[in-house]
Structures are given as structure tokens and as C-alpha cells.
């Protein structure tokens, strides 16, 4: 059998590893299409041949649920993530709180983030900065990218002295160091929901979804820095 998974781009490598493991164990084939959550959501609205959708935020999953484009019964909150402040090279850790002097640390540089009103990582980051009262000081110094990986790349290349990305991204990029992790209560909870797509009567959907929450997948996800929702 074969199962087609539409997954948020930020799940990248890790989901492929999980899919490989699934294939090894079951002999089924997994096709993963990575793109921005919004692109995938719209495609599912238009009848994309996806069996399972894993979104990077709850908004798009909610939109699809309201449209009846996913099977509400199958919906689970799969993963959590955290937000970190990164800098090029090995970073000197600092507490991330109201006292953080971002402008000083930026110098004449910019703060790299994903689009702060559009892309989930950017939206979370803006929320966190606002909560901490740091937003206004840097609002016009933010270099926004179309996805979180591009923000990561800006810091990795040394073009931006600071950036806000997911912890999982930072862990995977050796050229950046983590300055600190944003307090979990400074932003809405970062959740990756997953669900079977309505109209997909693929018998493997349930098996794959439960595999995602199973122990083998859990090991891979946590090794990459994700948290599991149920833990």
C-alpha cells in the first residue's frame, strides 16, 4: 500500500526518517510532499490526493476542519516545538526575558524571522517578543523571510546577528548557536496537528497516524528536538 502525506516544510528531514522507519516496518510506501502549510491546506481544499496532512499550526487545520476537508475524528495534536533566539557560531547564552537588550545585541544588524504576520514561526516569534515587551524596540529591524529555514540561513551565513527559529531548526544547523529559549508562556503553544484527509479512504491512514504517535516515531521526533503533545 501507499500513503501520501502533505507535511509542513519545517518537518523536513525528521518526517522523512519517520516515514522510512514506517516503510521498513510495514513494507508500505510513504510519499511525503513538503511545502508551506498554507500551500498544502489550499491544495487539500482543492482536492489534493493527500491521505494525511500535518500542519505547522492549528489555524490552517481549523480552516480545513470547518470546510469538512479533514476527517475530524482522526485529528490529533502531534508535536510541540519551542522557539529559540540564535546567533552565528557558538553563542553566549543569555536569559530571554524582559531584560534582554535586543537592540544592543543587534548592533546595526537585523533580526531574522519568518514573516511575522503570515508564517507560523514568525507569528509565534512576534507574539513572544510582544509579551516580553521587546517588540517595539526591534519592530523595524526585522528581516522577514518566506519560511523559517531562510531565517535560519541568514543567521548561519552571518548576515543577521540574531534570529528567531524553532529549537529543532537550531539543533540541525551547526553554524548557529542558541542564545536562549523563549519562555513557553510568552507565545501560544506551538502545536503540529495531524489528521486524515476527508475523502481519503486509504486504509493505511489510521496505521500511519498511530505510528506517528508510537514509540519509534517518538524517539526520532524527540531526538530532533520536538516535543510530543501527549507527554
Amino acid at each position, binding site marked *: 500500500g501507499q500513503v501520501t502525506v502533505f507535511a509542513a516544510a519545517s518537518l523536513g528531514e525528521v518526517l522523512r526518517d519517520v516515514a522510512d522507519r514506517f516503510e521498513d516496518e510495514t513494507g508500505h510506501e510513504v*510519499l511525503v510532499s513538503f511545502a508551506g502549510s498554507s*500551500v498544502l491546506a489550499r491544495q487539500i481544499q482543492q482536492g489534493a490526493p493527500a491521505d494525511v496532512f500535518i500542519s505547522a499550526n492549528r489555524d490552517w487545520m481549523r480552516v480545513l476542519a470547518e470546510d469538512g476537508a479533514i476527517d475530524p475524528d482522526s485529528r490529533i495534536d502531534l508535536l510541540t516545538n519551542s522557539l529559540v533566539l540564535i546567533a552565528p557560531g557558538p553563542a553566549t547564552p543569555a536569559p530571554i526575558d524582559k531584560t534582554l537588550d535586543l537592540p544592543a545585541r543587534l548592533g546595526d544588524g537585523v533580526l531574522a524571522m519568518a514573516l511575522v504576520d503570515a508564517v507560523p514561526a514568525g507569528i509565534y516569534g512576534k507574539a513572544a517578543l510582544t509579551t516580553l515587551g521587546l517588540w517595539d524596540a526591534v519592530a523595524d529591524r526585522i528581516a522577514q523571510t518566506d519560511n523559517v529555514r531562510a531565517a535560519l540561513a541568514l543567521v548561519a551565513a552571518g548576515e543577521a546577528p540574531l534570529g528567531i527559529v524553532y529549537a529543532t531548526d537550531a539543533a540541525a544547523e551547526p553554524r548557529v548557536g542558541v542564545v536562549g529559549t523563549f519562555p513557553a508562556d510568552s507565545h501560544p503553544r506551538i502545536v503540529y496537528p495531524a489528521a486524515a484527509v476527508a475523502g481519503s479512504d486509504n486504509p493505511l491512514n489510521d496505521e500511519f497516524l498511530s505510528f506517528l504517535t508510537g514509540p519509534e516515531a517518538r524517539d526520532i521526533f524527540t531526538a530532533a528536538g520536538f516535543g510530543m503533545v501527549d507527554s
Partner: protein
Amino acid sequence: MTLTGWLGPEEWQAVALSLKVATWATLASLPPGILVAYALARWRFPGRHVLNGLVHLPLILPPVVTGYLLLLTFGRQGPVGALLDPIGITFAFRWTGAALAAAIMAFPLLVRAIRLSIEAVDPKLEEAAATLGASRLRVFVTITLPLILPGLLAGAILAFAKAMGEFGATITFVSNIPGQTQTLPTAIYAFLQVPGGEASAIRLVVISVAIAMLALVLSEVFAQRLARRLRQ
């Protein structure tokens, strides 16, 4: 190091798919491209500027927007998609859709090139053919078409190169499903999303550049040879 050894099976698949998509996109857009170019070059009709604008739209719009428009039109729920689906023609999420997206994005380049060649054909030769009894269509097929071959070729290769590189509209319209719709550019994108994927991305970039360059150089050489043969 063989090419197959250097590339993983999935990457290899992306190369093959890109070639297929770009080839079909180019071939399939030739007939409408020629027609539109001919109309723009030779006919004076009310909607001329509008048609010209429409053709150029994909150049002006961000590719993602073009992709969305394609999705809204040719998706299963879309007006055209809903029409075609029952008779077995599906674009959304198929390689055919990738070809359609690539064709539409490359269309302005193709039409421009062909239009310029048509404008360079002396209408007097076409008149001469008409006085010899050839119908409009015959004149076109036997006189105009052979004379614009060099320009046609150049335009086709340009379109092919563009089709090989098309990303935004493609990923938005047909997604990025390995083996089905994952072309070279979407594969490169996927690699760039993955930490440490740069090496793989660069490999694919090199391949796609090599293919397009080869096509470009060959077309230049061939077009020059053709042009020399036609020089009166």
C-alpha cells in the same frame, strides 16, 4: 562516478520528471504560442492589447499567485477542472499539471520570441505564395513556419529552460509529491528546507544548469546554422 551512482533514486526520478515536464510543456505550448504570436504580429483586432497583456501576466505575477490561480481554475473544484475531470483529464497534482504550470510560466517568453521572428518574415513572400494558389493555412505551413524556424527554436529552448527552472507556480499548483510531481526545482527546495541538505541541493542545481546550458548552446548553434541556410 556514474550519474546514477551520484544521484539517489528519488533525485534521479526528479531529473527524469523535470525533463518530461519541460519537454511536454514546451511542445504543447508551441501550437498555441505560434497562434498567439501570429495574431499579435499580423492581425489588428480590438482585444490585441488585452491579449498581449494576458500572455504576459505570468511574468508579472508572483509565481505563487499564478499557481493559486491555476489551482482555483484547474483544481477538481475549479470551473475548468470540474469540467475536465469527468472526461479523464486531470491537471491538479499530476505531472501534467506541472507541465501546464511550466508551460504557462514560459508562455510569454515563447510568444515574444516567435512574434519577433514572424515580424521579421517578409509579407511579400506570403503574398507571392498566395498568388500561386496557396490558402492562408498552406502559406503559413509552407512559407512562414519554415522561415521562422530559427526563432521558433530559440523561443522553444528558452521556454524549455524556463520550464526546467519553474518552481513557485508548480509547487503551488501540483505540490511536491516525489515521483509524481517533484521536479528538480521542488526537489532543490525540499533539500534547502532540510538541515544539511545543501550538498544535495547543489548537486541538483548543477544538473539542472547543465541540462539547460546544453539546450541553450545547442539551440544557438542550430539556430545560427538554420539562419545561415535561409539568408537570401
